[in-house]
C-alpha cells in the first residue's frame, strides 16, 4: 500500500515462465480441471464459496483480432462461449442459432484481466476510516486473519476495475505485518456477499511482507524494528507452525485421543507448509528476496510470487530457477528507499531470463489499466533490445497471474474448455487508446461501455453525483 504523494495532495489515497508452455495445459478439455478444494487438512470445508454462474445465452464474437495468451493472435477470428465455457476459438467458428452475435470488426479480444495484488474491497472507497480494513496492524504476525472477512462487495472501486477488463482479483491484506493474513481470490462480479464472489476451488494466498513497512509500523511497538528482526519474526512463526502441523498430521492419521486444539494462526501457516496456501510475498529489494528464498528453503515451502519486486531484474536468473513469479509494476519507483532501483525493463529482463512475469496493480486506479502497464513494460523492454512478444505481454495480465493464483487450468487464456472470462477491446489492448467495450465474466456480460444496462453500480454509488 502506498500513499500517492501528489503535488496537490488532492487526489486519491490508495491504500497500497518465460517458458512458452506457461499457462494453459489443456486445449480441448470439455470441462476444466478442478482446482484444489478450499479445505484445510483435518478441519473440513470452511467459509465455502457460494459463487454461481449467471445464466446467459451463448455469445459469438466474430471478425475480431483474438489474442489468446496461449501463443496466438488470430486476425479476423471468432470466439464462441456457452454456459460459461469457451467452446471454440479460431478463424471459422459457426454460431449456434440461439447465440448472441457481437461484431468484433476492428476490435480486439483477450482473456479477462487478472490482478494478483489488489486492495479493493479491503481498502474501499471513499477511503475513510470506515473502510480501512486492510491491515490488522495489531501484531506483526496475523496469519489468522482472512481478507475475505474485510472485503466489502459494495466498494465503488469494483465496477471501475470491471470496466478496465478485470475478471479475477486476489484481494490481499496490507503490508504492515510480516505475515498479514490470507488473501481472497475472487470473481469480480456484482454480489451481495464476498462468498458469492469467491473463486470456487481457488488456493488461498498468504500475504507476507519484507523490509520497510513492518519495521516502520512495529519499530516503536515492540518490534520488529530491523530487517534482521523481520527475519526472526518469520522464522519464529514457521517454527511454531511446524510443531502444529506435526500434531495435526499425526492426529489426522491415527485419530488417537482428542484432536489438538485449533490455532487459526498456525492453521494458515501449516497449510503453507503443506503447499495448499500460496505465499504471496511483498518484497522490493533483490537481497531481501534472496533472504526470503532462504527462509522458504529452511521451512520447505515455495514462494509462489514476489510482489512489487522492483529489483527482480537483479536476480532474474535465481527467480527463474526457483520457479517464483514476480508481480510487478511497469514503472513505479522512488516513492520509498526500497523502491529506488525500479526500472522500466524489470518485466522484460525477468521474462528474458525465463522467469514468470505478472503486471499487478496494488492500486485502485492502476487496476483499471493493467493492459496499458503491460504495454509500457513490453515496449521499454523492446527498446532495450529484449524481444518481448505481444503474446507474452498479454500473458503478463492474464495467463501468468492465473498461474500465481493456481487457476491456470481454469482461466487466463482463450482456449476451449476455459472459463468464459473474455474482454472485447475498442482497439489494440497494448495501445493507450484502447478501452474495454465488453467484459464477460464466466459468460456473463458484466460490463458494456455502450449500454447503461450493463454498467453495474454498487449500492454506495446510488444517488451520488
Amino acid at each position, binding site marked *: 500500500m502506498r500513499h*500517492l*504523494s501528489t*503535488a496537490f495532495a488532492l487526489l486519491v489515497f490508495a491504500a497500497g515462465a518465460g517458458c512458452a508452455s506457461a499457462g494453459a495445459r489443456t486445449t480441448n478439455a470439455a470441462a476444466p480441471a478442478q482446482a484444489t478444494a478450499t479445505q484445510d487438512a483435518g478441519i473440513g470445508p470452511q467459509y465455502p464459496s457460494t459463487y454461481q454462474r449467471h445464466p446467459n445465452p451463448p455469445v459469438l464474437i466474430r471478425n475480431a483480432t483474438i489474442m489468446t495468451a496461449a501463443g496466438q493472435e488470430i486476425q479476423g477470428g471468432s470466439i464462441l462461449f456457452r454456459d460459461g465455457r469457451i467452446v471454440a476459438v479460431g478463424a471459422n467458428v459457426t454460431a449456434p442459432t440461439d447465440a448472441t452475435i457481437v461484431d468484433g470488426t476492428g476490435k480486439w479480444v483477450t482473456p479477462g484481466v487478472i490482478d494478483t495484488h489488489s486492495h479493493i474491497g479491503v481498502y474501499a472507497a471513499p477511503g475513510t476510516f470506515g473502510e480501512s480494513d486492510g491491515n490488522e496492524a495489531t501484531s506483526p504476525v496475523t496469519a489468522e486473519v482472512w481478507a475475505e472477512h474485510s472485503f466489502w462487495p459494495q466498494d465503488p472501486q469494483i465496477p471501475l476495475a470491471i470496466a478496465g477488463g478485470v475478471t479475477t482479483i486476489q484481494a490481499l491484506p496490507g503490508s504492515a505485518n510480516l505475515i498479514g493474513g490470507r488473501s481472497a481470490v475472487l470473481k469480480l462480479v456484482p454480489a451481495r456477499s464476498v462468498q458469492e464472489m469467491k473463486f470456487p476451488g481457488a488456493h488461498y494466498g498468504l500475504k507476507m511482507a519484507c523490509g520497510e513497512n513492518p519495521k516502520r509500523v512495529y519499530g516503536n511497538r515492540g518490534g520488529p524494528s530491523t530487517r534482521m528482526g523481520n527475519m526472526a519474526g518469520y522464522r519464529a512463526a514457521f517454527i511454531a507452525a511446524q510443531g502444529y502441523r506435526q500434531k495435526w498430521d499425526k492426529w489426522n492419521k491415527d485419530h488417537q485421543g482428542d484432536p489438538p486444539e485449533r490455532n487459526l494462526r498456525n492453521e494458515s501457516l501449516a497449510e503453507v507448509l503443506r503447499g495448499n496456501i500460496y505465499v504471496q510475498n511483498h518484497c522490493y529489494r533483490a537481497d531481501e528476496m534472496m533472504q526470503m528464498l532462504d527462509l522458504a528453503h529452511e521451512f520447505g515451502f515455495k514462494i509462489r510470487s514476489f510482489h512489487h519486486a522492483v529489483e527482480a531484474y537483479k536476480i532474474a536468473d535465481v527467480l527463474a530457477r526457483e520457479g517464483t513469479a514476480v508481480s510487478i509494476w511497469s514503472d513505479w*519507483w*522512488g516513492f520509498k528507499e526500497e523502491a529506488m532501483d525500479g526500472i522500466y525493463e524489470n518485466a522484460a529482463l525477468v521474462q528474458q531470463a525465463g522467469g514468470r512475469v505478472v503486471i499487478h496493480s496494488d492500486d485502485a486506479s492502476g487496476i483499471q489499466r493493467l493492459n496499458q502497464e503491460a504495454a509500457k513494460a513490453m515496449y521499454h523492454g523492446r*527498446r532495450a533490445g529484449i524481444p518481448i512478444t505481444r503474446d507474452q505481454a498479454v500473458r503478463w495480465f492474464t495467463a501468468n497471474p492465473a498461474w500465481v493464483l493456481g487457476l491456470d487450468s481454469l482461466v487466463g487464456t482463450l482456449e476451449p474448455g476455459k472459463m468464459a472470462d473474455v474482454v472485447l477491446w475498442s482497439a489494440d489492448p497494448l495501445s493507450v*487508446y484502447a478501452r474495454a467495450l465488453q467484459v464477460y465474466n464466466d459468460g456473463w456480460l458484466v460490463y458494456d461501455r455502450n449500454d447503461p444496462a450493463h454498467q453495474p453500480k454498487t449500492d454506495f*454509488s446510488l444517488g451520488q453525483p
Partner: protein
Amino acid sequence: MIAFLLAQTIAITGGTVYPVSGPKIENATVLIRDGRIAAVGANVAVPAGATRIDASGKWVTPGLIDGAGQMGLREIGAVQNTNEATLRGNEVAASFNVLEGINPASTLIAVNRMEGITTTLAVPNGSLIWGQAVLIDLDGATIEAMRVKSPAAMVADLSEAAKDAGGGSRAGVAQRLRRVLNDAREYATRRADYRRRQIQDLSASAADLEALQPVLRGELPLLVVANRRSDIETALRIAQEYKLRLILAGAAEGWMIPDEIAVAGVPVLVEPMDNIPSFDALGIRYENAPLLAKGGVKVALMETTTENTRDLRQQAGNAVASGMTWDQALRAVTLTPAEILGVADRYGSLEAGKVANVVVWTGDPFDFSTGIEHVYIRGREIPLRSRQTELLERYKTLPPKY
C-alpha cells in the same frame, strides 16, 4: 563551455513537426540557434556548419510541460529529510517560495526529462495557502539556470484537505481565505500604520501579506486546489470578489459545470487517469478533461506523481481515449500550461523566438510504442541517460558488472 553551447546551431530535418500553435507540417525543419528556435517550416534553409539531425519518419513536438509535481523538491517520497516542499507551522505561507529548496542534482530530473518532459511546476505543499510555485526547466546545474518563472503561481487549497485551517469546516476555510485577502488589502494601504503598530492584528505576517499583493493586483495567478463542485464554485466566487486570476487544480467535478468555469475564463489543471471517488469528489470520472474541453474551458493536463512525471504522456493518451481530441491533448501538455502559467511568449510551441525545448519522437508521443530520439532543453541536447539506464546496463546480463 556555455558560450560554445549557445553558439551551436542544430537543424532537425525531415520530421513531421507539430508546432501546436499551428497545424502540423510534414517534412519540416526546426532550426535551433543559441538556445532558441530560429525557424520552423517546410522551407527553412539549413546554415552551413549546423548540426543536422535527421528526423525523417519521426514526430517533432515542443517539450512537454507538467503544471504539477515537486520535481527537485522531493527525492524520495517516504523520506522526510529529502522533502523541501512544505513549510511547517504556517497555514498562510504566502511568502514561502520553493525555489531555493530545489535540488538541481535530483535523480528524478534525468529519469523524467529523457521521456520528453522538459518543464515542470515545482509546487509547495501545505495547509490553506501553500506558498509560491516555481516553473523550472529540467536542465541546469543551478536553480538560476533551471528557473523559468518564479513565482509562477500562488497556491491555495479549498479542498477537504484544507479544512483544519478553517476550523474543520469548508465555510471556515473560505472565510479565513477572505480574511487573509482583506487583511492583505488593508496592509497594502496602511504599511506605515502597520510598522508603527497602529493597526489591529492582521491574520498573517507582514511578509505573507506582502507576498499576496501581486495576487490582489491580478499579476500572479492564484492556483486553487478544489475538487467538489461546491468548492470549485467557492473558488470562482472568491476570485470574482477580489478580481483574482484564478487557476483551478484538480477540479474533479468540474465536468458538472463547464459553462460556469468557461464563462469565468478560468483555466483548469486536470489529472485524467484519476477516477477514484472520495468524499472530496464523489463525482470524479475519466471524462472530466474531455467534457471540460468540450465546454470551452482551457484545460491543461497534469501528472501529480513526481517521480513518474513522465506518465504525463499516458495521462494525455487516456484523455484522448476518454474523448478529448488528440490535438486538444497535445495542446494541454504544451501550449496551454504555458499560457496558464504566463510563459506562452517563451514556451509551449515551436515558433521562431521561443525557447528551444524540443522533443523528437519515433511516433505518437502518447502511445507506449513510441520511443524518444532526442530531447533538447534550451537548445542543449539532453543525454538519454539516468540512474535507471545505468542500472539497466549493469544488470542487463547476469552476473552484473560491478
